[in-house]
C-alpha cells in the first residue's frame, strides 16, 4: 500500500469526526418532551378530558385538525360531534386554545423535539395567556 500510514491516519481522523456526535452525546439523555396541561382553564375543569381520548388526540390531532379545517372552511359545518356524542364548536383559536392556552409548553414541546414545523401560527393567533 502506498502511503499506508497517511491513509490509516486519515481513516482514523475521518471515523473520529463522523462518530463524534454519537460519542459526545453518549450516556446523555435528551429531555423527554412533556407537554403541560396545567392551564387555569383546564385546572378548573371537573373532568379533565379533551374532546376525544388522550391516546386518540396524541396520535390523530393533526388529521383531526385537517378535517376540522375542511369542515368549517369548505363546508361551513362548525359543530363537531365526538365519539361520546358531545358537541364542540370547531375552532382552533376559540376551542382548542381556550383550554390549551399555553402553546409554548403544550404544542411546541413535542413539535420542537420532533422537529415538526407547523404553519398554523402564521395566521392563527395564539392566545395571550
Amino acid at each position: 500500500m502506498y502511503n499506508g500510514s497517511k491513509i490509516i491516519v486519515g481513516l482514523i481522523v475521518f471515523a473520529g469526526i463522523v462518530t463524534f456526535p454519537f460519542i459526545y452525546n453518549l450516556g446523555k439523555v435528551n429531555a423527554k418532551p412533556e407537554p403541560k396541561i396545567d392551564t387555569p382553564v383546564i385546572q378548573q375543569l371537573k373532568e379533565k378530558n379533551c374532546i376525544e381520548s388522550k391516546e386518540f388526540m396524541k396520535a390523530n390531532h393533526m388529521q383531526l385538525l385537517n378535517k376540522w379545517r375542511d369542515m368549517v372552511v369548505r363546508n361551513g359545518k362548525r359543530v363537531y360531534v365526538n365519539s361520546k356524542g358531545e358537541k364542540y364548536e370547531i375552532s382552533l383559536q376559540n376551542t382548542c386554545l381556550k383550554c390549551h392556552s399555553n402553546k409554548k409548553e403544550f404544542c411546541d414541546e413535542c413539535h420542537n423535539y420532533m422537529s415538526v414545523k407547523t404553519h398554523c401560527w402564521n395566521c392563527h393567533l395564539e392566545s395571550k395567556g
Partner: protein
Amino acid sequence: MVMSYESKANRRQFLKILGFSTLSGLGSIPAIWALTPQFAIRNLQSEKRWAMVVDMKKFRTEEDYKKCIDACHTIHNVPDFGNPKDEVKWIWKMPYRNTFPEQEDEYISDGVKQMPFMVLCNHCKNPPCVRVCPTKATFKRIDGIVQMDYHRCIGCRFCMAACPYGSRSFNFREPRPFIKEKNPEYPTRTRGVVEKCNFCEERLSKGLSPACVEACKDNKALIFGDLNDPDSEVRKVLESNYTIRRKPELGTQPGVYYIV
C-alpha cells in the same frame, strides 16, 4: 371509528349505478355524482342567497363610512399599512366614477358625483375570481358567499386580475405588525395570500348579521338578508326602491345592490 368521511354510496350501489348509467348511454357521470360527498349539497343550492343593499342616502358624514369600515377591519384583523400601494381592504370608499364607470351621465347632481360609495366584495352569482383560481382556494358556497380558503391560497393573484370590482387585496408584506389591535377570536392572514370580505360568514353561522351592517344599524344604511326569502328585509327594500348594481353588463350578477 371517529374519523371517517361519510360516503354517499357503498361499493355495491356504486357498481349498480355505473352499470345502469353505462347501459343508458350516460357514461360514468351519475356514478361519479353518487360518489361525490357534495352531491346532496349541490341540490340544495337554492336554499339561501345572502345579499346586501347599500342605501347611499344614509351615508352623510365621514363618520357614517368610518364606523362600517372600522367595525369590519377590527374584527377581521385587517392590517393598515398606511400607504395605498400595499393597502388591504375588505370594505372601503370609492368615488362614483370608479364605482359605476359605465354610467356616462355627464350632467348629474354634484351630490352623487362627489359622493364616495361604500363598496365591498359583491359575492357574485357568477364569480370570475372563482373561475380563475388554480387551487380552488376561492369558491362559492351554497348560500352564495364567495369565500376564501387561505390555507390553499398560493398568492398567484389571478383572482385579483379577474375581479372587476377590485375587491381583493394582496398581502405584499407580513400583515401582523400592522394590525393595531388583534381580535383573538379571528385569524390574521400571512404574507403572500390574497384576502377579501367574507360577508361575515363566521358571524352568520352564529345567527348574527355582518359587522358592518350591525355598526350602522341605527340608520339602516346597510341592509342584509336572504334573497330567497320573500319576507326578508332585503327583498322588501329591493321591491320598494330602485336599485342599481355595479357593472351589471359583465354578467357577474353581484349580490350587493345600491340605492342612489
